[in-house]
């Protein structure tokens, strides 16, 4: 069964989620991955959105973080201060999904500006929920498409902490959560090196070569001691995911983009 790179990314991220996880899901691919996991191997996974919806079970993917569908299918919906104070800062979320316009080798993210902050070439949306998700969630999963323009040697602006510019900054700042433990791209999956916390290739998606990853990475990318092939999506996963997207397109009259 053939599949797209987006489907490969979504499936790879979904598989990394367990039935016990409590996820802070963003819109776009993370939502697709979380809900795919919920509809396949992790029926009890809890999905929380920053709009205040606790344990939501959307039948279709949200186009925005505050879609009515999220509230209507939630256990309950709380206020924005409560979500950030009691639920996120309270340390109850095991997994947070993030992405950005730029990522560096330590999983730090830029969602603020390309170029100089005061005179940006491109003004990006900004932090939103990301800055505190990165430090309060048990661990962080990153999902981004590989390209030299987004996988950069040096961020223009560090919006959201990964492992910091030294790879050890979390410990130095007294942050006890793990930070980025997985980076899923359209070419491979990456995991932090146990020693240095630099994100290293853990598996290559079927048909992808190390050379392709090197070309698309703005720093000298490292590979883990063992690099497996990412198990491709199986038909059961693809059927559930495609049905989810079909329901979504019908409900919104449009496809679902990402932040």
């Amino acid at each position, binding site marked *: 069964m053939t599949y797209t790179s987006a489907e490969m990314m979504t499936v790879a991220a979904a598989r990394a989620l367990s039935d016990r996880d409590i996820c802070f899901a963003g819109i776009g691919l993370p939502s697709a991955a979380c809900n795919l996991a919920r509809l396949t191997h992790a029926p009890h996974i809890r999905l929380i959105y920053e709009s205040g919806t606790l344990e939501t079970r959307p039948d279709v993917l949200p186009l925005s973080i*505050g879609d009515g569908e999220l509230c209507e299918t939630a256990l309950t919906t709380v206020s924005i201060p409560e979500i950030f104070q009691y639920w996120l800062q309270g340390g109850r979320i095991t997994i947070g999904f993030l992405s950005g316009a730029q990522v560096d080798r330590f999983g730090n993210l830029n969602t603020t500006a390309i170029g100089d902050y005061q005179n*940006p070439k491109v003004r990006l949306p900004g932090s939103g929920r990301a800055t505190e998700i990165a*430090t309060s969630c048990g661990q962080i999963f990153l999902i981004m498409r590989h390209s030299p323009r987004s996988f950069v040697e040096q961020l223009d602006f560090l919006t959201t902490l990964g492992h910091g510019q030294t790879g050890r900054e979390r410990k130095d700042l007294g942050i006890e959560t793990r930070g980025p433990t997985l980076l899923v791209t359209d070419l491979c999956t990456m995991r932090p090196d146990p020693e240095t916390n630099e994100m290293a290739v853990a598996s290559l998606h079927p048909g992808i070569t190390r050379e392709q990853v090197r070309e698309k990475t703005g720093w000298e990318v490292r590979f883990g001691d063992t690099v497996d092939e990412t198990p491709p999506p199986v038909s059961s996963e693809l059927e559930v995911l495609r049905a989810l997207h079909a329901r979504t397109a019908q409900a919104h009259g449009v496809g679902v983009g990402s932040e």
Partner: protein
Amino acid sequence: MEFLGLSEAVSRHVQDGDQVALEGFTHLIPFAAGHEIIRQGRRDLTLIRMTPDLLYDQMIGMGMARKLIFSWGGNPGVGSLHRLRDAVERGWPQPLEIVEHSHAGMANAYAAGAAGMPCAFFRGYRGSDLSKVNSDIRFVPCPFTGEELTCIPAIRPDVTIIHAQKADREGNVLIEGIMGIQKEAVLAARLAIATVEEIVDDFGPRSSNAVILPGWTLSAVSLAPRGAHPSYAHGYYARDNAFYIAWDTVSRERESFLAWMKEHVLHKVPQDRETVR
């Protein structure tokens, strides 16, 4: 609290130079009130909002804002806010000063404002460059553990505007569904306006813990049916996702943006009733 037509509520309570917060987290965004502010040509506003989206893109593009205090400025699920970008990147139609926070920061700052505190304490911005570009972000030690905690000033708007489902005859306002930061934004403000889908004699049977703002916490309540469109009102109408997508094209060029605003906002009659009871 008085019941006022929307145009009168805005002319009475929103002044040039004010710090204005129009809140609503994806849900219940007060578009009708924002459009009335645009029609009345307010200037030099400091716009406060966690997620400046289409409404603030429109107000910024029409040159009403001097400053923006925010935490995420995009078109949810679609992409950029082209008018916000044009103002920040090229100073059109005028330069826009920005004060930038995270969602957690804005949420805590509004809550501190509602609680009458001068500032908010929480755990935030750790390891981020945001504290380098926003001098309002300070770090103070916990007197018991020594841990460095984050402190930012409370948000205290001159006027907050929200949209809600219902008001009763006393001007009490009921919010259902995703309530976002609206309660805090109203309680933190010096003045507050609520636009509502309908005014009812009585809320009727409801949860004993329903989210209700008493009329005496508001300056004015205005009837504005579909006043949150193209966002949505839980129990009334759904989010107009097609509009959010179409806005990407409409707002991309200055000319198409101005033409759209002229036709759909400037030349439109305020969406209110002269008499509301």
